[in-house]
């Protein structure tokens, strides 16, 4: 693509007249291009294209039967015009990257971006710059995400179903795990991240999961050991959740799934208040007489209590909720995370929204408490492991809907937890279902094709030049194309994502010295015990070292 600036404005974007002989059909919306102004280079994105006639009469002439005239008029009387939006400017003098506060002068030359331009903006791939894909039609050039910035805030991966959200998530997870900048906890609803996932590609069929790629850096927890066994996965731990872990808030979260009305919710709080930590199991074990007695004592309505009990019986059907589980899964997950491992929690056949939301909420609430304490201690000077944690949730609109996001732990994390080193990576196909306030707080968004107007609107909320990106978003391919915008990239960019294949596996598993190595964590002193553990790839359980003792203290207050 070659052309010159024809006209434009800062607010409305620039119009580029394509040079004679350039084929507009080859210029795709989303292409990354550079305007060479007098003193600045403006890095821009193609957002729209159209055909314009200097004299509109020309449109109505029959030019088609005269090839000579046709050739003359094309590019002169009728021009191909490309609309671009400058996203970032670099002063050539000192290579200073600046936000766009001016426009390039008239007749500035416009060209497609080259490799060095991409590197100048997105950096070269290294430990913290993760290669996620390449710009449109520039297959060999890597576009990098700044992982340090990425994990600083909560992020989102959006796209219609079938656009490869799972793959983008896998790629990002691989990048994060490899970098060692953070730990990840994946609530893996469809059991596709841990060991192995489906690949629609005929030649590959299976996509390797994180455990296969990172071995001892990743632990698989499961809610459904049978399903895991059937799939040939050896989970590190079977998760069972005690009734006492379930709090009123968790039930509020799944009220739609349990079909609870507002009165029922109030009753739950009454129950918790009077029955204490074991409220749920006590309540479920109550017979009709006990309920009436309880109603009399507390002033609650017996009918409402009975109705609630019937509805809550559904929880008893969830096999992973036990009265007295052998081990507390939450604590175990915390141990793993604390020792620098990454955890994938598989749901197996327990993939109902009820199970998913309940478990995710219970675990996340506890993690939240722990991280808040940790950060406070880190602030207070008593150092501990303070590696950031990224929690991956799917079907995020269920957790972060406008009605729930204010009450649930996920809404809180999305809004403010970055201060406590916990961020979310939300994966969703209906971003319009997510609370706009949460959406606007998301740092980086990776968005695949969306067609629904409402969804497009909501992912663009809080993005500069949103109007311009609308076209780009609607014209993405259904596979392997996404637009990345926000905190971790200097400018929005459309990429062809990397292929999740053997080449990727090789690259992601090899370190500079060819072996796994955990990079030192950012901003904290690391005890030698931790790193020796992380290097030992045969070890499945965290050894009871100094950190472990700290952890026990943290959890049990011993």
């Amino acid at each position, binding site marked *: 693509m070659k052309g010159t600036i024809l006209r434009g404005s800062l607010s409305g974007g620039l119009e580029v007249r394509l040079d004679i002989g350039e084929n507009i059909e080859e210029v795709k919306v989303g292409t990354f291009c550079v305007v060479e102004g007098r003193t600045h280079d403006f890095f821009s994105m193609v957002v729209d294209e159209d055909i314009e006639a200097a004299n509109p009469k020309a449109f109505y002439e029959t*030019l088609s039967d005269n090839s000579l*005239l046709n050739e*003359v008029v094309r590019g002169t009387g009728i021009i191909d015009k490309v609309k671009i939006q400058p996203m970032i400017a670099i002063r050539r003098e000192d290579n200073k990257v600046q936000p766009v506060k001016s426009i390039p002068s008239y007749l500035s030359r416009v060209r497609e971006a080259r490799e060095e331009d991409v590197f100048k903006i997105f950096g070269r791939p290294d430990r913290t710059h993760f290669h996620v894909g390449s710009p449109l039609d520039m297959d060999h050039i890597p576009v990098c995400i700044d992982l340090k910035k990425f994990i600083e805030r909560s992020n989102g991966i959006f796209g219609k179903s079938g656009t490869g959200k799972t793959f983008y998530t896998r790629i990002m997870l691989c990048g994060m795990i490899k970098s060692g900048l953070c730990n990840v906890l994946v609530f893996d609803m469809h059991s596709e991240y841990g060991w192995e996932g489906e690949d629609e590609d005929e030649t590959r069929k299976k996509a390797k999961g994180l455990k296969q790629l990172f071995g001892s850096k990743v632990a698989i927890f499961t809610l459904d050991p049978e399903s895991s066994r059937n799939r040939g996965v050896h989970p590190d731990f079977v998760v069972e959740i005690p009734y006492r872990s379930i709090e009123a808030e968790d039930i509020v979260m799944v009220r739609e799934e349990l079909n609870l009305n507002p009165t029922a919710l109030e009753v739950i709080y009454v129950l918790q208040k009077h029955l204490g930590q074991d409220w749920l199991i006590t309540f479920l074990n109550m017979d009709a007489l006990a309920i009436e007695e309880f109603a009399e004592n507390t002033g609650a309505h017996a009918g409402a209590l009975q109705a609630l009990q019937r509805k809550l019986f559904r929880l008893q059907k969830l096999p992973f909720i036990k009265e007295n589980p052998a081990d507390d899964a939450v604590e175990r997950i915390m141990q793993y995370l604390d020792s620098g491992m990454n955890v994938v929690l598989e749901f197996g056949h327990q993939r109902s929204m009820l199970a998913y939301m309940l478990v995710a909420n219970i675990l996340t609430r506890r993690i939240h408490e722990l991280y808040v304490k940790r950060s406070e201690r880190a602030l207070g000077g008593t150092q501990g492991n303070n590696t950031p944690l990224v929690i991956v949730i799917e079907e995020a609109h269920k957790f972060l809907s406008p009605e729930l996001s204010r009450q649930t732990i996920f809404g809180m994390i999305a809004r403010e937890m970055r201060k406590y080193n916990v961020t979310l990576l939300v994966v969703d196909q209906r971003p319009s279902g997510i609370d706009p306030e949460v959406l606007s707080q998301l740092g980086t968004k990776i968005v695949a094709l969306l067609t629904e107007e409402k969804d497009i609107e909501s992912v663009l909320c809080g993005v500069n030049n949103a109007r311009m990106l609308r076209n780009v978003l609607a014209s993405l391919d259904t596979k392997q194309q996404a637009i990345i915008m926000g905190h971790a990239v200097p400018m929005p960019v459309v990429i062809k994502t990397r292929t999740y294949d053997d080449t990727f596996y090789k690259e992601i598993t090899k370190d500079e010295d060819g072996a796994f190595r955990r990079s030192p964590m950012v901003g904290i002193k690391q005890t030698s015990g931790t790193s020796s553990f992380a290097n030992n790839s045969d070890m499945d359980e965290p050894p009871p070292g100094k950190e472990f003792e700290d952890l026990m203290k943290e959890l049990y207050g011993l």
Partner: protein
Amino acid sequence: MIGEIIESRTAEFVAEAVRYDQVPAYGSFVRVSDGELRVYGIVSGAYTGSLDGMSKAKAFFKSIHELKMEQPQIFELLRTEFSCVVVGYAQDGRYHPYYPPIHLSLHLPVEKADDDEVLLISQHLGFLEKTLNSPAGNGEELTAAAIRMAARFHPDPREYIVRVGRELLKMLNYDTQRLKAILERVDIA
């Protein structure tokens, strides 16, 4: 030599043909050497009439061949003039696509421009503006003729015509209708 200047203005000149029946082609390029200057023009029209300019030729209703046999003297009484628009001049080996500083003197000989001269002059598309606004008022016709003449000397005539066409379109204020009228007269294969 094909003629001699008998009338001269800054923008155009008129020459009398050496022979009444030998005129340079309409739209062809001619050259007049005036001291250090070599002034170039494009033939923009021709006229044949009686020698004195007063009396009119008379019809005989015979073929030219018969007339030449029977009335050879009448041809001696005819003269032909052709007019040319000035398109530019060369001085010290450099071509300038605009009017010379002084208009041409009378009685200078007019010659056909050489091939390479035509090539050079027609590279500068400034001549289009002069032909288009020819004082005779036949701008489009003359422009088409000049393009036809010039294109032959270019290695890729079609490419040349396209280039000329683009320039013309701008001069015509993007009026594709008029451009079409001109290009239809440049029927180059």
